[in-house]
Each structure stands twice: as structure tokens, then as C-alpha cells.
């Protein structure tokens, strides 16, 4: 379970048997071609895979450099790549014979996907979500609850994603007998980083074949946003053996040196540590306690990073950049206007960096961006990010209407 010095299993002894059982089951699934076939078929029939690749002709022309293509994970059922992992783990949960799933969620995308999978697979479902996130992400909570999941607001720590993970761990150490922990990103103890990456590798497999079919060649560069790292690992894996530059785009927040960011590798603020079950680069202080992080995109606002990515970065196999909140706002506006796409704020970090670099590339060069999700169901987040006054007036009017209804 190590990639260079990163990875491992750092969990309470009580979970040792559970993690071994999971690891064994994962190995069996991985070596059983019928498992992958079942997974692919379910993704096709339930989630609409393969997702297409769209040529951004307008954006490319506007920038005057490389031709930009986008892998459309936003078109998945539930609106992001999260469903790939979740359906995969759902199938695995069935093999484990467990009847209940738990998951953490930050922005709510992974919780939304997990609740969906649980409804589809007939599993009990509890979602842990920081109380701060519950308060600001009510739309996703609403859908999760309507799909039958119990959403628990976590009151510890920063009351955000990392605290939700801790709380999910506490549930797991209590209920591991009937409960599978559907970790949302490619982090945490082995085999999660590898397992989540494996389920997400469907993105890269498709993308490689599609690029060859649509453009007759491979892209020169691939940009993917990196929170935990699952969507980036998903698409990068399709191109590890190729001469393709891979670029991970982290949350630059208010910029380098501001401390209000979540860039583990692009900036110099992170160091190697052990938390949440694994060893990787964390944004932590000299005492080994985790820092508060910040991003305009809740889904990137995480202290750690996938250990495989950390190892690839160390070997110069993946280049890391960070996009600031401001760059993300501008990239989102440009993408909506020129292409009619609404990338999630997370995804927009990848767009921002591709937009920055495309003009200096040749017109015959090709960029591929992984559009990990769509933002159209996260209107509060986007409207607030863009500081839209008409939206705020609308909410005030709605509130007054609801107030009146009650009287």
C-alpha cells in the first residue's frame, strides 16, 4: 500500500480485520474480469457512460493557442465523476455482504452520489457532513434526505470535510460488521487511494480511446483539478505510458503565501505527515496539527492529497499548479459564455490553468481538460462566488414569501 514513501494504513487496530477483508475483496474484484464488466455495464445503463469528449472550438479560437478538448464527467448521473467510485464501491459492498454504507462529504457531491447509489442498491445510508457545510449546502442535503439517506451534521473541529471524515471513521470503528465506508476521494488508508483510482480509471480509459478517435492523436497536456485527487487520477491513468504532460490544478485560494488556500504541492506550505489513515503531504503546522484551508470550491478544500499523486509529483511525472479564487471566477465566466458549459467550481480550477497556458501553445497542440462536474445544481455556491445581486434579491424575496406562508 505504498507509493514511494506515501500511502500506508494508519488506523486503529479494531479496523485491521475490516481493512484486510476489504483489501482481499478489492484484489478479487480487480482480478475478476466479470466485476469490471458488470461495473462498466451499470455505468452505461445507469449513469450514461461513456461520457463524451467535447471540442471547445470557441474557447480555443478565443485564446488563439492550443485546441482545447473537455472530457465530460459532468454529464454523469448526479452531475460529477463521483458516481464512478460510488457505484464501484456499491458493487464491492454487495460482494462484502454488507447492508449499510457510510460516507463523508464536503460540498455534498460525494454524499449526493453515495445516497443515490444506496437508493439504487437498497442499502442503508448515513452521510457525515460538517455542520458548516450542512448549513451552506442545504440543496445537496435536501436531495440526500429525499433519497432516504440520514445526513449527520458534524459539530467537531472546523465542522467541514476533514471533520466529517473523522466522524465517519468513528462510525466505522463501531459498525464495521455490517457497514462499508464509501470513502469519496482517492485518499485515506490503503486500499482506498488505489481502489478509488481504479474505479475512476474508467475516465482515462475512455478518454484515451476517444481522443485517438476524434483527433487521431493523443493530447499534449491534460489538466485536472486536484482536491483529494480522484478525478485527476481517473483521467491521468489512461496516459501514464504516453508522452503526455499531466497537470494537477490545486486550489490557490487567495494565493501563495496567503495561508488561505488548499494547495499542497503547487505551493510550499505542505509537508509530509500522517492523518486520516494515510501518509502524504498535508497542510499542517510544525506541531503536526492540520491547518485550516480555504478554497472557493468546497470540493478542493482538503488538507491532504492522493499518495500516488504525491509520488508522481516527486518524480516529476505530474506538474502541479494552483488557480486562485479570482482566476477561477474569470475562467468560469469565460467558459459559460464561449461554450455553454457550466463547470463545477472545482473543475474550473483546471479550466483556469488550461486557459492560462493555452495561448502560449501552438495551434496544432492539444489540451484535454477533465470536466469533473457541473455547477448547475450548486447555484448558491456559484451565485455567491460571482457575487450576483439579483440572486441575493431573489433569495430575500423568497424568504419573505416563505415567512408570509407561515403566518
Amino acid at each position, binding site marked *: 500500500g505504498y507509493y514511494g514513501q506515501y500511502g500506508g494504513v494508519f488506523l486503529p*487496530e*479494531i479496523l*485491521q*480485520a475490516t481493512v484486510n477483508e476489504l483489501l482481499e475483496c478489492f484484489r478479487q474484484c480487480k482480478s475478476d474480469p466479470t466485476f469490471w464488466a458488470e461495473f462498466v455495464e451499470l455505468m452505461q445503463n445507469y449513469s450514461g457512460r461513456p461520457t463524451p469528449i467535447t471540442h471547445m472550438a470557441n474557447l480555443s479560437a478565443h485564446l488563439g493557442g492550443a485546441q482545447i478538448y473537455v472530457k465530460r464527467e459532468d454529464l454523469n448521473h448526479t452531475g460529477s465523476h463521483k458516481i464512478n467510485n460510488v457505484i464501484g464501491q456499491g458493487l464491492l459492498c454487495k460482494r462484502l455482504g454488507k447492508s449499510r454504507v457510510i460516507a463523508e462529504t464536503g460540498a455534498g457531491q460525494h454524499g449526493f452520489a453515495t445516497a443515490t447509489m444506496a437508493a439504487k442498491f437498497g442499502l442503508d445510508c448515513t452521510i457525515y457532513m460538517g455542520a458548516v457545510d450542512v448549513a451552506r449546502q442545504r440543496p445537496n442535503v435536501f436531495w440526500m434526505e429525499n433519497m432516504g439517506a440520514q445526513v449527520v451534521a458534524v459539530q467537531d473541529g472546523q465542522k467541514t470535510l476533514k471533520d466529517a471524515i*473523522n466522524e465517519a471513521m*468513528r462510525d466505522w470503528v463501531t459498525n464495521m460488521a455490517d457497514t462499508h465506508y464509501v470513502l469519496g476521494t482517492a485518499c485515506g488508508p490503503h486500499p482506498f487511494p488505489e481502489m478509488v483510482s481504479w474505479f475512476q480509471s474508467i475516465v482515462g480509459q475512455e478518454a484515451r480511446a476517444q481522443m485517438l478517435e476524434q483527433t487521431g492523436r493523443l493530447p499534449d497536456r491534460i489538466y485536472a483539478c486536484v482536491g483529494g485527487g480522484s478525478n485527476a487520477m481517473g483521467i491521468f491513468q489512461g496516459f501514464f505510458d504516453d508522452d503526455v504532460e499531466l497537470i494537477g490544478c490545486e486550489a490557490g485560494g487567495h494565493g501563495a503565501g496567503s495561508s488561505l488556500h488548499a494547495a499542497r504541492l503547487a505551493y510550499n506550505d505542505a509537508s509530509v*505527515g500522517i492523518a*486520516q*489513515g494515510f501518509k502524504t503531504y498535508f497542510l*499542517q503546522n510544525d506541531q503536526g496539527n492540520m491547518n485550516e484551508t480555504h478554497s472557493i470550491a468546497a470540493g478542493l478544500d482538503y488538507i491532504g492529497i492522493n499518495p500516488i499523486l504525491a509520488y508522481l509529483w516527486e518524480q516529476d511525472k505530474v506538474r502541479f499548479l494552483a488557480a486562485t479564487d479570482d482566476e477561477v471566477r474569470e475562467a468560469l465566466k469565460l467558459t459559460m459564455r464561449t461554450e455553454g458549459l457550466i463547470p463545477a467550481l472545482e473543475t474550473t480550477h483546471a479550466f483556469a490553468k488550461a486557459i492560462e497556458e493555452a495561448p502560449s501553445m501552438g495551434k496544432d497542440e492539444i489540451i484535454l481538460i477533465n470536466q469533473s462536474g457541473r455547477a448547475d445544481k450548486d447555484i448558491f455556491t456559484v451565485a455567491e462566488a460571482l457575487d450576483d445581486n439579483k440572486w441575493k434579491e431573489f433569495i430575500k424575496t423568497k424568504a419573505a414569501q416563505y415567512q408570509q406562508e407561515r403566518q
Partner: protein
Amino acid sequence: MGLQSYIEQRKADKSLLVMAHVVCGYPSFEANMAELEIMAEAGVDLVELQFPFSEPSADGPLFVRANEMSLQNGTTVNDCFEFMAAVTARFPFKVLMMGYYNTVFKLGEEQFLRRLKAAGGVGYILPDLPIEEAGSLHALSAELGLEPIILMTPTNSDERLAQLAAAARGFVYVVARKGVTGSKTQMGDDVAALVARCRAHTDLPLGVGFGISDRSDMEYLRGHADMAIVGTAALRAWEQGGAEQLRQFFSDLVAA
């Protein structure tokens, strides 16, 4: 004298030892010292000093909050070692560091162990460090005469218990049930059976923890285990009624 011998010696006079727990810097080091006074008066045999960590994922709600508040108060690793030195100088009970592995890793394993030893600690409990990841730390500890406390749990197979036993030093921390610290455990055949399974794999003293909260638990453990490990229940007593209630708590607990 090693921890195992210390425990065996104490056991000569007492049918069941007690290990207590304090979260360093919560609510303050002064309060910690007052708590430890009471514990010493009550004849507590061993104390875990928890070094606060930002992600205490093996802890229950009361300790989670205690970790959080202590860090908010500005508690550093250095503060904790200094406090430990003061404690070991003042009290007769032995002291263990308890915490999460990142605190150790960040300081450096060797540096951590040297400071622990300098502060008078005899060992450590790191619940998120499995034996597979503990090779270098355990080796260094052996060199320095510090003892890693290993946890045995109800989900471990016999094979695993044997592996754990091989790594264990001082005593074995038997986790009475699944879950995190702080919830009540129903003492009964399950606990007895678990202790018996652990006993089959090790000659080290056995301490039983997780949910030990009153005299009846103590009575149940007597004869099964060598030591009761009391954490959350003591902190709850302190939070609810300060020194007086904590004193009452231990006096009830250890009354023969």
C-alpha cells in the same frame, strides 16, 4: 524497573490496578495538575497524558472536544513534554504518552523518544499506528528502554493476536468493545471471553479500557484483568463537578 515489573509489583497489593487519562492542556495544565493530584490520592497506578491532535479520529466526543480546546489554548508538543516532566517528578504513578502518530512523525521518531524519556515517560500509546507501520519506532524504543503499548481488540483473529502479542511491551491494552472511547460498555461474557483470548496469547499484564465508568465495572474486571483503564468517565466527572466530583468518582471507583 520496566513497566511490566512495575505492574506485577503493584498487583501484589491490589487485585486490580487503575490507569487514568488526562488530555494535556484541557481545560488547562493547572487543572490537569489538580486532576492528577486527585488521581494520585486515589492510588492510581498509571496515567496516560494525551498530547492533543487536530484529528483525533479514535476518540469519542468528550475527548475530541478536549483535544480541540487544548489546541485552541495554544498547547504545543513542547508544553506537553514539560508538563510530563513536572508530573513524573511529582507523582509516584508511572506515565505514558498517549496521542496520534503524526505528533511523533513530525517531531521525528528518535527526537520524540528522547524527549519522552527525558520527561520521565515509560512508554506510549498511539492508537493509529498499527504494528506494520511501527517497526523503526519500536526498535528505537527497545534501545531506549521505552515501551510501546499495543491494543488488542474484539475483532482480532487469533493469528493477529499472536502478532500483536509479539510486539507488545509493558502491558496489553484490551479494547473492550468496538467503537471510540467514551461510550458505556456492558461488562459481561463478551469482555471476559476477549480477555481470555488475549491472555492465551500473552503473559503481559492486561489492562481493559473503553467504557469503564463505575465500581460495578471494576468488580466485574477483578479476576479477569490486571488493570482497569479509565478515561472519559473521569473527565466527565471533572467537567460536571470539578475537583470534588472527580475525587468522589475515584473514591467510589477504587473502594474495595
